[in-house]
């Protein structure tokens, strides 16, 4: 039985229990019963007191707080509760009845728990509702992603980027669906922009390449080790830098300098103070078009009395982010057309019959066979470069060429040499076959020969619309019964009569010649491309062909302005004397829009709006003391050149690029994701991405087996 917790002297030792879960229902009235409710919140319905025996009588002991002894003045209490005074057997005559209430603490706990349960229930309800994606998303997507990932109510919308975002109420994926990473999902969509194999590698470079590059900061990185996740199999997760769910206005590419400094630990507290100077940037390579700024400014323009104005050749690209060179017609033709026309001369010999020594060949035990009388005598004459390239498809002729040397001349053959006599006979036979093929196989026969040397995707350019009947006519005139009377018109005159270019038969020289159309002639361009691309065993042939087709006195003088570059470091740097294959020709000037994304970026647009920067020479100041380019362009290495501009000083930038002005963030001028080419060597950063036209014309390397 519950006992009173206070004795009769209640007022002095009154004891409250606010921590109990239930409170007497009379507490609010100021007269709680001394027992209080049970633990389960029931009223014990106990008597108001335990009467005390005083002598022979029982005396009420009800405390003063509840009105005092009930046998006295009992004001304020309901008589219906009972009578007054103890019963004769010593029991209390009154019984307390109430409806216990929760204590303040319990009510507080219940409200808190109720609120928590309600919010949990609401959350679960929303996760199962059409608003699930809104609840799951920690913020709005950027505009580009939001458009791509519509509709917004798709239950699997999150799964497009989150492996765990599959269609489940809580968005928690089963373990078997977590074999992919979020970054892999990013790359799956962005593979057209980033190489999936290297997308997560630091800067998109193989680790060995990353460490090899000689930047001072990277040396430091190599010494201290890369941060976690950099350079290992996992790479740097996309989300390390690209933070989504910050709303449509958030820039995914806006990254902090600290992100860069995770690897580039050398701290750049300020651009002005700590950033290294620009070195030779942006003059890290020669221009693709051999244009000598100093000579033009001081000599050619001065002689013509014209102002050397940058804008005459460099004009704004659409968007004004970069400058573009004007085309040949607008920028060069005015002065250079004459030279190109003059260089045509009597045309480019494509096929020519050398003078052969029949006696020497017979002495060597070979038979010369049919050969024009006009081309019989002491060894003399040259095989044109194109002829050599075409003859190289014939194994026997190729062997003879290999023995004689790619740049041999018949003049150098020894009449007393049996080997020379055999080779001469072989080449003569091969030449007769070459002349006989077009009438039978058309242009295809020629292209097939060229294709055996290198893969040509646009073979029509190599044939140059050669009239087959002209080959037949030449063959008939040179080898047939038709007498070859002394020509009334020389090849030079014939060429002059063909200002639009074309083919002609040079009966005097026993040659089939091609007269270029002028600048941009497709046949010349195709054969130079082919010759430049030859490598390995064909390198000698290519070099000899380039010396003739792209030499200083070549027809068209293409290589006077269009520079040749090596495709890789293993190749010779000088095509004039050493093997020159594996190169390409810069037919187009640099176009920043086609350039591979490199570490540094610069946009002219926000700069040229400043009045003082509108003058190009504010930054690009010619250095007259640098002298002319000279023979620098003879090299295949684009880094071999004379810098004709004064170095670009960092001081030119620091005036504006400071905090709270133009800004000093790394990402303002530097790219993180660069575009490493797959087919070029480690000098790729200097090399241009082949333009669309170039990639169409020459694609490599699918060599046919000989």
């Amino acid at each position: 039985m519950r006992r009173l917790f206070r004795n009769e002297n209640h007022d002095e030792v009154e004891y409250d229990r606010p921590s109990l879960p239930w409170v007497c229902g009379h507490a609010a009235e100021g007269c709680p019963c001394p027992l209080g409710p049970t633990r389960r919140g029931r009223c014990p319905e106990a008597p108001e007191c335990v009467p005390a025996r005083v002598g022979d009588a029982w005396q009420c002991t009800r405390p003063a707080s509840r009105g005092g002894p009930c046998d006295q003045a009992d004001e304020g209490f309901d008589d219906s509760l009972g009578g007054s005074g103890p019963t004769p057997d010593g029991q209390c005559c009154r019984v307390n009845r109430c409806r216990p209430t929760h204590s303040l603490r319990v009510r507080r706990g219940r409200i808190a728990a109720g609120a928590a349960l309600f919010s949990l229930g609401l959350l679960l309800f929303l996760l199962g509702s059409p608003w699930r994606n809104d609840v799951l998303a920690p913020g709005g997507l950027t505009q580009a992603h939001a458009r791509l990932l519509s509709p917004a109510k798709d239950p699997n919308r999150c799964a497009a980027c989150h492996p765990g975002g599959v269609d489940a109420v809580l968005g928690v994926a089963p373990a078997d669906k977590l074999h992919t990473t979020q970054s892999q999902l990013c790359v799956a969509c962005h593979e057209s922009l980033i190489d999936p194999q290297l997308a997560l590698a630091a800067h998109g470079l193989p680790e060995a390449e990353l460490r090899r590059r000689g930047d001072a900061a990277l040396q430091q990185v190599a010494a201290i080790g890369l941060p976690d996740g950099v350079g290992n199999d996992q790479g740097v997760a996309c989300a390390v830098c690209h933070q989504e769910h910050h709303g449509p206005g958030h820039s995914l590419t806006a990254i902090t300098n600290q992100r860069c400094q995770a690897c580039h630990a050398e701290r750049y507290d300020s651009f002005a103070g700590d950033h290294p100077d620009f070195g030779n940037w942006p003059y890290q390579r020669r221009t693709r078009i051999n244009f000598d700024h100093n000579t033009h400014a001081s000599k050619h323009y001065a002689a013509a009395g014209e102002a050397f104005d940058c804008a005459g050749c460099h004009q704004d690209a659409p968007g004004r982010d970069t400058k573009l060179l004007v085309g040949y017609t607008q920028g060069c033709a005015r002065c250079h057309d004459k030279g190109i026309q003059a260089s045509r001369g009597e045309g480019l010999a494509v096929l020519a019959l050398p003078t052969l020594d029949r006696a020497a060949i017979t002495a060597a035990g070979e038979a010369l066979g049919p050969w024009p009388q006009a081309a019989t005598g002491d060894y003399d004459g040259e095989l044109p470069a194109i002829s050599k390239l075409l003859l190289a498809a014939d194994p026997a002729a190729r062997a003879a060429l290999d023995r004689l040397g790619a740049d041999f001349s018949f003049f150098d053959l020894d009449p007393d040499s049996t080997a020379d006599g055999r080779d001469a006979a072989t080449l003569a036979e091969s030449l007769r076959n070459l002349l006989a093929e077009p009438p039978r196989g058309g242009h295809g026969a020629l292209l097939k020969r060229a294709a055996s040397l290198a893969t040509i995707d646009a073979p029509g350019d190599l044939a140059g619309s050669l009239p087959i009947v002209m080959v037949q006519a030449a063959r008939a005139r040179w080898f047939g019964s038709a007498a070859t009377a002394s020509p009334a018109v020389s090849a030079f005159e014939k060429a002059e009569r063909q200002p639009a270019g074309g083919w002609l038969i040079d009966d005097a020289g026993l040659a089939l010649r091609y007269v270029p159309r002028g600048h941009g002639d497709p046949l010349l361009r195709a054969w130079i491309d082919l010759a430049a691309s030859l490598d390995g065993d064909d390198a000698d042939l290519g070099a000899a062909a380039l010396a003739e087709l792209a030499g200083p006195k070549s027809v068209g003088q293409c290589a006077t302005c269009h520079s040749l570059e090596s495709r890789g470091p293993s190749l010779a740097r000088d095509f004039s004397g050493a093997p020159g294959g594996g190169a390409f020709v810069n037919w187009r000037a640099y176009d920043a829009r086609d350039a591979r994304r490199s570490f540094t970026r610069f946009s002219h647009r926000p700069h040229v709006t400043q009045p003082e920067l509108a003058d190009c020479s504010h930054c690009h100041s010619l250095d007259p003391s640098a002298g002319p380019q000279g023979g620098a362009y003879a090299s295949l290495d684009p880094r071999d050149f004379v810098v004709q501009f004064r170095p670009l000083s960092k001081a030119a930038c620091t005036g504006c690029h400071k905090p709270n002005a133009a800004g000093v963030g790394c990402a303002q001028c530097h790219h993180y994701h660069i575009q490493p080419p797959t087919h070029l060597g480690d000098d790729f950063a200097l090399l241009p991405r082949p333009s669309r036209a170039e990639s169409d014309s020459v694609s490599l390397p699918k060599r046919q087996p000989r």
Partner: protein
Amino acid sequence: MTRRRTKRRVTNAAVLAVGVAALWWVVQAMDARLVCAPYWTGYALLAVLVVLAVYNARKKFASLPLGSGAAWLQLHLYLGAGSAVLLLVHTGGRWPNGWLEGFLAAVYWLTFVSGVVGLYLTRAIPRQLARTSEEFVYERIPRLRREVLAKSRSVVLQAAGDAGATTLADFYTSRIDPYLAESRGGVYTMRPSSSMRRALMRELADLKRFLDQAELVASEKLFALVRKKDDLDFHESRQSLLKRWLFVHITLTCLVLVASVAHGLLALSMRGGPG
């Protein structure tokens, strides 16, 4: 005492400052290692919230040797301040724009503000209560109020009997008894005022010239009883505010915990995948 308290505050504030500086350094170091710091600050924040919430549970285990209540309160206060810094670091100072995250941030800051308000109340109200005549236990106030009422009625009845006049009794019945019998309204609870007591006492003082000797003696007792009733009301309103403030603070704390755990689970389930 004041000096000791100042020393304690300086020490605790210094510890908090060191903790915040260490947090900043760790987050910067994580950032420099390309570690996703928000995950770790999230873990830390959840742990801090649990410790803060445990302070309430600790009261239920007063008998266990878990440290003094005062020490726990200090820990609660300074850790609460630190949690705000931790949250700012965790969110990067941005206001989250997701539904759940926005709700979480809202209830967190409401909890924080309610905590600051509570800190003010626990500091200001005891001083206010100390200015009254006595200190009253909150749970006993109804009974004491009832005793005051009973005593006042007894005094007035006796005075009426002794004086044979009902001047005081009439005034008591119309003005004082309702005041003593009824509790004060919600407005008083929020903003206690002694204007009613002063008005009653002024009226009672004006009535004195019409009272005889026995009623004058009784009126003096009524003055004391009215003052005591006013003190009881004041205590009840202030202590009630002190107790009911916790309703808000604890309820918000529960919401923060629920939303935090949900946010953490979702963040972990949506993270980048293996590795």
